[in-house]
Each structure stands twice: as structure tokens, then as C-alpha cells.
């Protein structure tokens, strides 16, 4: 086992990305593709020891690394993962691999730059999840915006400039306040940016409230929570398929992760005080956004809204306090939902990408009867649609089930409102499926559609295996997070006034 495991995980994709970038123009596109695939595969492989070598019996930080970075300000290159962040690093490395495959021959312009942007972003995201120094986290967290901004702005659809600027401003606005909060805590904690030191700091309630608002604005935009969610549908619609996959699978998770790593353990009292707001906003996301998803005519928008609705379960689960205690079912459900949504939403966006590559339309009305021409694809999309509807034996079920069952223990009506997703989730997903996939061949364009090629089959099959695997054996994920979640719950239960 290497001692610098996490650095390897963070920097392998970034170095690979720079190498890909060095291949230059599109005349060497095949080289760029294979190099990117090798880099993504290497990135995924080096992330696996984090899972296999993870000690389930330790709830604290593992694979820690510590080097001074900016000594004048006591900023350190401090990395480490617990059972919560580790899962997302592996998920991210996995998603990057899928994204490289997804963009393979679809992207024909500036191939090297496209692939490099994803690889570099992957490393930066790994860095955000692994950071134990708030400043380091902030740098990774912000730096990650740049490749995503470029991906939407360069390879995006017709309104890409509006979408990318909206995305950038929305997320930047929030994170500036987070920076202010970090600086306040830096002085308060005795000139250190150590996140774990922040966790043990006493803070007055009024200050906690202010800091919570700062964190909220930063992370709620990322999740995104209602009502700061409107950037997401625009970003998804304009982003290329790979961009949507990463956006939904990973970057949204960073917002939820922020609540778990910063807002809850640093500000437990404010979190408890404001939990009802978080719960209310989450339930609005589940119900209101679920209904909005129902009436979308653009498939990507529909899945984007469905993402917001599903992320509502994540924030709902995290703020499901019973007295002073977070509810274990709900918190672990939220985490499972985060991982599962990574697989399912990536798969849904990939499916839409597969159809878009053939028909160049995202409009539901332009399709109909796709199953006649693409039966294999239709079978895969049925599986992912069912996962999106939360059917048992798919990963989509586990998280929602756990959050709902946790919610019943806290308040019956929270659970009842959340459980409406059983109906609305199935309604918007399967109604779209019915109009797009079922029926007689809708028009002459659909009649010319060809079923998935080997590359698409590979991506769909891998995602299908993960979705089913996680649904049939969630224990593989949950067992890793138990002790870290227990520590978190115990920590948050103590008042820091």
C-alpha cells in the first residue's frame, strides 16, 4: 500500500489530463481518446484501493497525508478520507471512466481539450472530497468550476453561453460567502484551516446561524435545493452528455457533502434550529419539483428536474433530527441516495445522449416507438427508468426507502410527503418512457435509428450492473460508512454553545 494513496488519486487524472492536452489538435484525436481512456482507467484503478483497503472498524480519517503548503497562513495540504468521502472519490473516478467512453466518437471537435477538461475536473473533485484543510477544499471546490464552465460553454448547445454564465454566477455567489465563513473560523480556531479543528470549536448560536446561512448559500446552490435550483435545468440542457453525467453524478454531491462535512458538524446547534427550514425546502423539492418534472417536454429538462427531486431526499435525510440526534436511517439513506443517484442519473443522461446522437432532438414529441428500432437500448432504459422510479432491487430504491423509513420515526407527514415520490417519480419517468420508447414508430427519423453500438452497450451494461448490484447488496456500500456516520451523529448530538 502506498503512503500517498490519496495524492495519487487526486493527481493521476490531472497529470493524465495535461498529457491529453499535450496531444494538441484534432488531427491526433484518436491518440487523445486512447490516452484519456488510459488516464481515466488509471484514475479509477488507483481509487479502488481506497475501497478495498478501507478499514470498516475505523470511523475516523484514513489514508491521511499532511504537508505544509502556505506556511505563512498555516494552510496545509492535508488529505484524508472517512467512510463518507471515500465512496464519492471512487464514484467520481468511476463516472470519469464512463464519461470518457460516452464522449468517444460523439465529440469530434477539440477532442483533446474535451477529454482533458473531464480528467482534470475529476482530479479536482477528488481533491475536494479528500481535503481536510478548508482552504485546500475551497481551492479545489472553486477550481472545479472552471472545467465545467468550459465544458458547457465550448461543447454545449445553442444557449450554452447563457447557461454557463448562469451556472458560474449562481455557484460563485454562494462560494464567496463560504470563503468569508472559512476566514472567520480560521481566526476563531486560532489561525488554522483544519476542518477537524473547526469541528471541535465552540461557537455562539447567533454566529452559528450566520455561518449556517453562508454555508447554506454555497451548498444549497450546488445540491441544488429549491429555490436556488433554476440553473441546473439550463446547465443540463446545454451541456454535452458527458457534462450532464458528471454534473448530475458528482458535482451535485459536493453540495450535499458540504452540508455533511461543514454545516452539520461545525454548526450542530444552528443545524438543529434550522432543520425545519431544510426539511421544508427538501420536501418542496420532492413534491413541487416532481410535479414540474411531469410537465417537461424536453427529456433532459425532465431528468434534470428529476435529479433535483431526488436530491431532495439527500438533504431531507441529513436534517431529519429526532430530538438532538440525527436519524441513522435517514442519514445513511441520504448517503446511499447520493451514490445511487450518481449511477442512475448518469445512466439516464447517457440514455438521452444516445438518442440525441441519432436524432439530434431532446423533445419527447420528436420520438415515439424507439423500442421497435432499438430493443436493446429500450431494455436498458427500462431498467434505468425503473431505478429512477425507485424500484426495489435497483439502487434507486435503497436510499429513498431508508430516508422515508427514517422520516416516519421523526414525523409521519414528512414521510408521507416524501413518499409521494413513489407516485410522481414513476409518473414522470414512465410517462416519458411511454411516449419516447413505446408505441408505433413515430416518424421517419425514428425509423432510421440504429440500436446501440458496442461502446454504448459497454457503458450501459456497466451502469446496469452497478445499479442492480447496489440494489441487491447495498451492504457493500453501507458497511463502509457505518462508523463514520455514527461518529458524525455522536458529534452533532453535542451542543457547541
Amino acid at each position, binding site marked *: 500500500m502506498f503512503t500517498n494513496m490519496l495524492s495519487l488519486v487526486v493527481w493521476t487524472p490531472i497529470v493524465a489530463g495535461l498529457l491529453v492536452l499535450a496531444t494538441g489538435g484534432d488531427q491526433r484525436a484518436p491518440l487523445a481518446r486512447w490516452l484519456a481512456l488510459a488516464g481515466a482507467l488509471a484514475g479509477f484503478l488507483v481509487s479502488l484501493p481506497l475501497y478495498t483497503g478501507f478499514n470498516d472498524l475505523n470511523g475516523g480519517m484514513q489514508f491521511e497525508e499532511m504537508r505544509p503548503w502556505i506556511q505563512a497562513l498555516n494552510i496545509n495540504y492535508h488529505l484524508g478520507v472517512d467512510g463518507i468521502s471515500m465512496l464519492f472519490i471512487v464514484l467520481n473516478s468511476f463516472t470519469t471512466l464512463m464519461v470518457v467512453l460516452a464522449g468517444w466518437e460523439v465529440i469530434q471537435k477539440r477532442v483533446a481539450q474535451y477529454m482533458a477538461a473531464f480528467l482534470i475536473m475529476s482530479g479536482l473533485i477528488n481533491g475536494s472530497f479528500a481535503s481536510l484543510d478548508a482552504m485546500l477544499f475551497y481551492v479545489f471546490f472553486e477550481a472545479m468550476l472552471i472545467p465545467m464552465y468550459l465544458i458547457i460553454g465550448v461543447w454545449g448547445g445553442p444557449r450554452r453561453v447563457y447557461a454557463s454564465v448562469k451556472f458560474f454566477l449562481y455557484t460563485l455567489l454562494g462560494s464567496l460567502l463560504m470563503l468569508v465563513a472559512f476566514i472567520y473560523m480560521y481566526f476563531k480556531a486560532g489561525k488554522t484551516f483544519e476542518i477537524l479543528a473547526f469541528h471541535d470549536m465552540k461557537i455562539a448560536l447567533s454566529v452559528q446561524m450566520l455561518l449556517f446561512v453562508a454555508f447554506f448559500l454555497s451548498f444549497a446552490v450546488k445540491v441544488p435545493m429549491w*429555490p436556488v435550483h*433554476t440553473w441546473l435545468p439550463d446547465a443540463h440542457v446545454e451541456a454535452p452528455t458527458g457534462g450532464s453525467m458528471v454534473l448530475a453524478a458528482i458535482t451535485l454531491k459536493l453540495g450535499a457533502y458540504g452540508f455533511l462535512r461543514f454545516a452539520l458538524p461545525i454548526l450542530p446547534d444552528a443545524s438543529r434550529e434550522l432543520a425545519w427550514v431544510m426539511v421544508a425546502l427538501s420536501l418542496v423539492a420532492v413534491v413541487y419539483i416532481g410535479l*414540474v418534472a411531469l410537465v417537461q417536454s424536453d427529456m433532459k429538462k425532465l431528468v434534470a428536474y428529476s435529479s433535483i427531486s431526488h436530491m431532495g431526499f439527500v438533504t431531507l435525510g441529513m436534517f431529519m433530527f429526532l430530538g438532538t440526534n440525527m436519524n441513522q436511517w435517514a442519514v445513511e439513506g441520504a448517503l446511499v441516495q447520493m451514490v445511487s443517484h450518481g449511477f442512475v442519473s448518469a445512466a439516464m443522461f447517457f440514455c438521452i445522449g444516445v438518442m440525441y446522437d441519432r436524432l439530434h432532438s431532446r423533445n419527447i414529441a420528436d420520438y415515439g416507438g424507439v423500442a421497435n428500432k432499438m430493443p436493446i437500448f429500450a431494455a436498458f432504459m427500462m431498467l434505468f427508468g425503473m431505478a429512477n422510479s425507485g*424500484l426495489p432491487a435497483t439502487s434507486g430504491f435503497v436510499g429513498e426507502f431508508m430516508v422515508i423509513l427514517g422520516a416516519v*420515526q421523526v414525523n409521519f407527514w414528512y414521510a408521507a410527503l416524501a413518499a409521494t415520490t413513489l407516485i410522481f417519480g414513476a409518473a414522470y419517468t414512465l410517462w416519458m418512457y411511454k411516449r419516447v420508447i413505446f408505441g*408505433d414508430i413515430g416518424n421517419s427519423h425514428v425509423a432510421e435509428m440504429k440500436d446501440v453500438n458496442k461502446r454504448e452497450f459497454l457503458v450501459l451494461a456497466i451502469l446496469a450492473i452497478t445499479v442492480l448490484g447496489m440494489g441487491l*447488496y447495498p451492504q457493500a456500500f453501507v458497511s463502509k460508512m457505518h462508523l463514520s456516520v455514527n461518529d458524525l451523529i455522536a458529534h452533532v448530538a453535542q451542543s457547541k454553545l
Partner: protein
Amino acid sequence: MDMKSLYLLIALAPLAGSLIAGLFGWAIGRRASHVVTILGVAVSAALSLKVLSGFISGQTEVFNGAVYTWLTVGGHEYAVGFLVDKLTAMMMVVVSCVSLMVHVYTIGYMQEDPGYQRFFSYISLFTFSMLMLVMSNNFIQLFFGWEAVGLVSYLLIGFWFKRPTATFANLKAFLVNRVGDFGFLLGIGLVLAHFGGSLNYSDVFAAAPALANKTIQIFPGVEWSLMTVTCILLFVGAMGKSAQFPLHVWLPDSMEGPTPISALIHAATMVTAGLFMVSRMSPLFEMSDTALNFIMISGTITALFMGFLGIVQNDIKKVVAYSTLSQLGYMTVALGASAYSAAMFHVMTHAFFKALLFLGAGSVIMGMHHDQDMRNMGGLRKYMPITWITSLIGSLALIGTPFFSGFYSKDSIIEAVAASHLPFAGVAYWALIIGVFVTAFYSFRMYFLVFHGKERWMANHGAHHGHDEDHDDEEPSTDHHHGLGPNDKPHESPWVVTLPLVVLAIPSVLIGFFAIEPLLFGDFFKGAITIDALKHPGMHELAEEFHGPVGMAVHALSSLPFWLALSGVVVAWIFYMKAPHIPAAIKQRFSAVHKVLDNKYYMDDLYFNLFAKGSRALGTLFWKVGDMLLIDGLMVNGTAKLVGVFSRLTRKLQTGFIYSYAASMIIGVLGLMTLWFAGIILR
């Protein structure tokens, strides 16, 4: 082989067949696909029979064990596991045997269909899901099986996915079931929250007695019995799956699927899952009379009012479908009367004779070249003798002819309701009694219209559409049938179709006679079904009056249900054989009533307009007003505008003249000094 491996094999054999046919059906071809799936289900059926006979002979013990840990939370393990007792064993036999017959039948019924392998894969997957449901020893796996059978039902109703009516029906079925699951899931949530944190049946049932008087506040300030709320929520799930009023609306539409699955899923097995679940949870339901009453009301409405709808149907499958709804209502009423064993008994007999009726109807449909309209049939007994005899047997069993299986189970239910002390039992009893007449009437209306009388297909060539004033354009089955050509005659179906009919006809006649004593009055269900004999002595009283199956049948000859059934048959004979002008006149005279029945009490329209359109309207409102107008329009773009306005204002400050900068600097310094002085003075 130890029991756990045996049970795993029973459950997984159909799954293996399904995966092979589903994933590799394109490579191995049709023949291999049906061989491998039939083999899988045959293994399950044979082993299930072995398990049941082991239970009957007393060699097999109740098995309750885990297979693998699915999840651990808060120190509790949630495992995939099996609970196999006699209740389960009976259901396993019913499921696997009916499924086996349907598999064989499908070879004939689907032989020309391009989706042959896919169909076999689905029905084997269904068998696996249903077995997982009945064999579960915990709520999570129950819910898995519950949803999995729903999924396969969805896939099979929409099997012919090119038809708009099929994809409408399957979406409707899935969503209505999801409404039920919504309650079911919350019920499971309450079980988890209050019954000690385990979701294993045995732990939950052990914890239940201590919670008899526990109350919870669903609405602040109102204390409700935990047991009542939990049981009603669980039953809401059963209302979806077992198509009880008001969640019954999906079942008639499900007839869009191929007939074999109507027999297997929408008559014999899946729709009984809800009844099985309530029986399995009898230790909980026994503790809440309110919940039992609720169940009885829902069942009564279904049993009677869905029966009425059977009378006005012209599609042969629709008649059988409404009859299924009505019979499910009977079973549900039995559950409400704490006669769980009678309900499960009827589940079993009904599985055989209703599967028989559906497969018979399918055979008729094949003989008629996929015409399902009974008005085009008639006199088929000459052309389809095996189908005719077996269908007659099925109908006789359904209407409760003494000595037939349906008689024993249905009469037991009626007697149990008569003996029930619940407040609603009186109404329920009379509804069931009237239902006996209605059942006999629509069953023999169908029987006479199909097998006797004039051979109407001769007269109706090319006139299948539009010759009736009450033609319903949305009648899903009329727009895709081919019907007989001018020179065609109906023909008997191949042996793969008639063999299952014959095989199913045997238990349809005999099983009631042999099973009633052990099932209802012996100790077959002892340990599996719990009845609070002090509060609900009905089944106990029945046992005292029971003097053997022969005595019961003889006694029935002088009872009201028998004479009502007989008069139903006679009235049907008069109306449809002797004097066909009478029903026409009645339809004329009571056209308003007929219209209500023809429109299924307008419930479909109500649901569609209220829920489907309502949700879409609400979604549009949230989207256009909430997201686009308020959030994007006002907040996001408004902020952007505000920044614009602010910067226009501040731009005016930047004049570029040194004197104006100097002036503002001096004003600023003066201001700061004033503050400073003020601070000193005030201190």
C-alpha cells in the same frame, strides 16, 4: 440438500430460466427458450409440491432463516430470507403450478408472436418475483416481491407496446399500484418505527401484543391506535395490488395484456398478493377491529359493485376480469371477518378455476381469430369441445355449485361473514348474497353467449364495429382484433392449449372437497394464521357446525345462496337463450343505469380528470409561475437587473474629474472625524 438450498432453488430456478430466455433468447431460439423456462418453473413446481406434501405428512418443519444480509442499520440486520410454513407452501404450490400450466399454454397462444422469447422471460421472472413475495420472512423482501410482480405486470400489460391502449393501461396499472404502495411503505415505516426496529415477521409479531393500546398522533392532539393506523396503511397496499375499491380501476384495463398473463397474473396469483399479505399479518390485523371493518367495507363494495359491471360487458375477457374483481372482493370481506383461512382457501380454489376460465377464454379468442366480442360468438361448443367442457366446469366452480371447489370456499366465506360480529358484517353478508346471484348471472350470460345459441360469427362478417348503439370507442380490444374471415370456422386449439385446461379443470372440481376440512377446520394454518378467538369467534362457530364436505354440500341445497345461484343461471338462460328481447328492453327501459354501468360508475373519468390532469395542471403552474416567473424572472434576472441599475448609478460617481474625487475624499474624511469625535465625547 438442506432446506435453505432447496428453497433457494425453488425461487431461483425460474429466475435462471428467465435470464437465459431474456438475455440469450435471440441466440438460442424459440424452442430452447420455452424449454428452459418451462424446465425452471417445473423444478419449482415439483419441489413446491414436495415441500407441501412434506408439511402435510408432518415431515417438514417450519423454516425461518436468512440467506444474506442486505443491509445493516443501527445494529439491526435486514436480510433476504425465507419463511416457509404451510401458508407459504400452499401459495408456492398454487403459484408454481398455475405458472407451469400457463407456460405450457403460452407455447400455443403466443406461437406467432415475434416477442415469443421475451414473453417467456417475463412470465418466468414473474414466477420468481411472486415466489420471493410469498416466501419472504420480512417486510423488505415482501416489498421487493410486491414491486417486482408489479413491474412484470407492467411489462406484460404493455407487452404489445405498439398499441396505445396497452401502454396507457400499463402506465395506469403501475401508477394506481404505486398509490397503494405509498400507503404500504408508510405502514412498513410505522412497523419499523414502533415495533422494536426489526422488520422480520417473527420479531414484529412478537412485539405486537405489547403495543395493543399504544396510540400515536398523526394529527396533533388526536390520538389514534398505532395498530389501526399501521394495519390500514398496510391494507392500502393490498387495495392496490388486489384491486379493491377505490384502487380497483387498473385491473379491467390490464386485459390489454396477452391472455396467458391475465390468467396467471391478473387472476390467479399476483392479485392475491394483497390477500396473502393480510393473512400473513393476521397477528397485527387481529388487534384492530377498526382496520378489519375498513377491510370489510372495501371488500363489500368491490364484491357487489364490480359484479354489476360484469353484466354489461361484451368483451369476453372483461367479463372474466370483473368477475375476478368481484371474487377478490369476496376474499377481502373474508379477511375483514377474520376468516383468513377461508380467504386463502378461496384464493387457492379461485386460482385454479379462474385461471381455467381465463385460459378457456383465451382458447376461445384463438378459435375466433382474436375476436373478443361475445356478440360475434355463439354455438362454439360444437367446434371447441374441450374448451367448452372445461369452461363449463370453471363457470360451475365460480358460481358455487355444490361439490365444486368454488362452492366450498365461497360458501365458507358467506358463512364466516354471517358469523362475524363486526358492525358492518350484516351489510356485507347481504351484499355477498346478492353477489351470488349476480355472479351466476354474468357467468352464464357469458357461457350461453359463447358456447350456445346461434352461430353469430356467420352473420357478422365485416360488421364487428359500429353495429351496437353502446359502442365505446375506447374499448381497447375492439381496435385490434382480426376476427374470422368469411370462410373461416372456429377451431379447437392445439394440445398445448387444451392440456392446461384439462389439468386445471381437475382441481377446479375436486380440490375444495378434499381441502376444506384440513384448511378451514383442521390445524393446517395453525401457527401461520392467528385469530383472536375471543373477539372473532366466527371460524370457531363454523367449525362446530361443520359435518364433513358431503354434509355441507347437501345442506347447501336448501340454502339461499344455492337457489340464488340457480336462479341466476336460469335468468341468464331465459335472457340470452329463450327471450333475447328482454335484456334489450331492460337496457332501453333503464338506459340511465346502463350508462352508469357502461362507464364503470365514471370512476375512470373522475380519476383521470382529477389526478392525472390535476397533477399536470399543478406541475405547469409550479413551473411557469414558480420557477420561470418568480424565481428566474424576479429573483435571478431581477438581481441581474438590480446590479445593472446599481452600476448605472455608481457609474455617475466616476466622473473622471479630480475635483469631484477630492471633494468626496474631504467629505469622507470629515465624516470619519465626526464619528471619531462623537465616539470620544460619548465615552
